């Protein structure tokens, strides 16, 4: 009865380009197992599919298969076409002349869970997402073992058939946001996505803006905190970054470590980051504006050293600053692309040597090098890498406008950026709050970074309530109430 096997071989040859890659293992004259060998776990295959099949007497229908095959996931199929996408993912297709099922014996290559590379903290948990969506889901489920944590799977893509998983807490999340996400992903059915960053840019509210509207993170604790706050996590199979939405502007400046350190140090660190934001965006433009237009604001004690250091420089302050900024960017980019063994040395040598030599050759002034370095430091204090890149980018038009129009240029650019941020939305929720609306409901007190009210006197309670009512910035809150 090899007719059956020949038919099977032909059918598979039709559907697969290179059919010799598919193993067709005949168990009996009318039962065969087809699979792609590099994708299956051979132990599972032999012990739990082949062995039971070899011992089976009679298979009449799909229920018999379910009884015989000892693998967790077994699905009956209508036709061979349904089996193909699953076989591509490592499932084994068990065929008889009348019935076919697929069984999950996949063993796709995946990375072990490791520590986060790019978002480090000093004391926090060292769990990072890996590229397998099952691992990510497992990590999140184990950190929030709650029934209201929902999963939702969406498939899309022409060629890659990517699995996208939405996770959210159904009792806290905003339903509109979930609907928006679903609609946007479904709209993209014909696109292929190589990772979550790409997906992010496809479903963002406004892709024309350089400001990221949803968070990308590889840390598990940040993701689970966000779930508890009522945010949506989007996991993409094959990418180790999770998308968190909707996000607010200040979410990009928060690190999970602030909560671990306690309210005093946490608030101090957050204020420090705001200061770093202002330094990185305004320091160099202020230098350009002051030296090109407003020499009067320089106090007399600084004046002599400034003039001395600039007297040898052949360029006007605007060009000098742009040259140094671009050099700093080159250093950073080169340091990111160099192989690890060479990277460290080149970074140090490049930075120190270029800086020193430039000053001595009279190419630039030492004050400006210090300012540019400070500004770069400030931009790296931002926990989220995408936001820090955006801030570095914002600095360039600011410097150019400062060189053209002085302080008016700086204020113009600031207003432009602020208005842009206010107009921005993230999944329909407002993106930037200068002042947060008063919050009636009392969500987790960890939002507030205030001391726990154990043993606070009644004065303390009323002070706490008073301060809470003045949510002057959403540094202190993660609420998405409007």
């Amino acid at each position: 009865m090899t007719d059956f096997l020949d038919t099977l071989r032909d059918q598979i040859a039709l559907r697969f380009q290179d059919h010799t890659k598919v193993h067709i293992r005949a168990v009996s004259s009318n039962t065969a197992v087809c699979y792609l060998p590099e994708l299956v776990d051979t132990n599972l295959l032999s012990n739990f599919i082949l062995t039971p099949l070899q011992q089976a007497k009679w298979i009449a229908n799909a229920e018999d298969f379910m009884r015989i095959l000892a693998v967790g996931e077994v699905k009956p199929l209508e036709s061979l076409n349904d089996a193909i996408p699953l076989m591509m993912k490592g499932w084994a297709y068990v065929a008889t002349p009348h019935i076919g099922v697929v069984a999950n014996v996949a063993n796709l290559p995946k990375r072990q869970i490791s520590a986060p590379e790019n978002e480090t903290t000093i004391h926090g948990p060292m769990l990072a997402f890996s590229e397998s969506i099952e691992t990510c889901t497992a990590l999140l489920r184990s950190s929030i073992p709650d029934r209201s944590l929902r999963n939702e799977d969406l498939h899309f893509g022409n060629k890659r058939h990517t699995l996208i998983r939405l996770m959210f807490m159904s009792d806290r999340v905003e339903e509109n946001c979930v609907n928006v996400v679903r609609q946007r992903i479904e709209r993209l059915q014909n696109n292929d996505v190589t990772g979550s960053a790409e997906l992010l840019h496809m479903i963002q509210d406004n892709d024309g803006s350089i400001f990221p509207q949803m968070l990308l993170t590889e840390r598990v604790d940040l993701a689970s905190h966000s779930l508890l706050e009522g945010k949506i996590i989007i996991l993409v199979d094959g990418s180790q970054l999770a998308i968190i939405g909707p996000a607010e502007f200040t979410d990009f400046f928060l690190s999970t470590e602030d909560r671990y350190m306690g309210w005093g140090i946490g608030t101090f660190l957050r204020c420090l980051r705001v200061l770093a934001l202002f330094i990185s965006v305004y320091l160099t433009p202020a230098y350009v504006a002051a030296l090109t237009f407003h020499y009067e604001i320089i106090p007399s004690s600084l004046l002599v050293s400034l003039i001395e250091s600039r007297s040898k420089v052949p360029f006007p302050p605007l060009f000098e600053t742009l040259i140094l900024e671009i050099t700093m960017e080159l250093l950073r980019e080169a340091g990111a692309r160099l192989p690890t063994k060479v990277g460290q040395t080149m970074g140090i040598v490049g930075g120190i040597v270029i800086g020193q030599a430039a000053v001595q050759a009279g190419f630039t002034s030492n004050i400006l090098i210090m300012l540019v370095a400070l500004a770069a430091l400030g931009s790296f204090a931002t926990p989220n890498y995408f936001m820090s890149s955006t801030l570095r980018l914002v600095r360039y038009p600011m410097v150019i406008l400062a060189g053209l129009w002085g302080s008016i240029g700086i204020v113009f650019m600031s207003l432009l950026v602020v208005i842009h941020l206010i107009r921005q939305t993230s999944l329909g929720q407002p993106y930037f709050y200068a002042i947060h609306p008063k919050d009636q409901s009392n969500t987790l007190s960890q939002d507030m970074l205030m001391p726990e009210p154990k043993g606070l006197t009644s004065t303390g309670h009323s002070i706490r309530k008073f301060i809470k009512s003045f949510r002057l910035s959403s540094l202190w809150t993660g609420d998405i109430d409007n």
Partner: protein
Amino acid sequence: MKSMWKIAVLIIISLCLLVGCVGTSVLEKLGLSVAVGFDGLPNNKLNVTSVILNPTTESAKKSKVISTIANSSKGARIKINSMISHSSVSGQIRVVIFDDQLGKAGVSDVVENLTRDPFLGDSIYLAMSNGSAHELLSHNYPQIPDIGTHLYEMIQQHIEDDWVPSCTVQDYRSAMYSIGSDAVLPILMKKDDRVEISGLVLFRDDRAVGTIGQSEGYLLKLLRGKKKEYLQEIGIDRHELEPHLVSQKGGKVRVVISNIGSKVRIRLTSMKPLQFHVRVHMDVELQEITDRYDFSKNEAKKLIEKKIGEELQKETDQLIQKLQRMNSDAIGFGNVYRSSVRNAHLTRDKWGEKYQKAKIQTQFHVNLIRTGTIE
């Protein structure tokens, strides 16, 4: 259609950026003037001396001095511009010096034009030079790398800690425009290779009418009541302190006191005849006394307090009479009059007549807080 709009907007933006240029003043291309001196010449001309910062690491001298003769201060700037390689700007001017010729003729023209320019600060110090401002500024001082900044720091330090009252443009103008007070400026004098503040010049409107010395300047600042000043040396007659003096020497007993806090109250006690009463309460610390004095008894302390007060009062009365003779109301009795009398409708001229005839009494009350670490 939409892309056409976008291109149009981009073109407009680029045009604006290219065309909308603003004049720049790049720092190192400027000849920053830090101090300016005005000498009055006949025919309403001015000899303007400008100290321009010239910091290069090679030379020890951080500034150079340029002078020219012109009709006005900005006219001078035009001429100075033609003499130096950088363009001369006035945004960092810290000190403006007039010579005594200009002081006698009236400095308000020059000061008004200084204020008209928005780039000059209001906290520029004004001073008068004893002699020609040009000589003061252009002399080659071996110890001083930059005369402009040096003068600025010297005046600033004297205003903060010593006996010179604040002499910024704002002080001068507000005094000149007020109905009841007159301006006071320090006098700079060149002495060998140094410059020192030798005294204060008193103004009536915008003309200089007289000078006072350092100890009188101390009292003047005390009576004006604005900033604190510290040390003053007082001489007291020997036999007044007789009961408690330990050692026997000749001459006056010199006491140096440090003023820790003082409260001055000037009151108008009567309108016709015009009478003022000035009461000063001083908390002082005794820093030095040239003779050995027995502080252990309470009467001794009270005696020395009384004597210090009397001495100060005597000197203050002399100062006030001197001011009245010069008709310069530097302390501000006119303001007191105007603020105490309703519907005074006072003008400068009216006050000028009244001031010279006013009777002003002073009373000092000195409180010796401590005598240092030893008695």
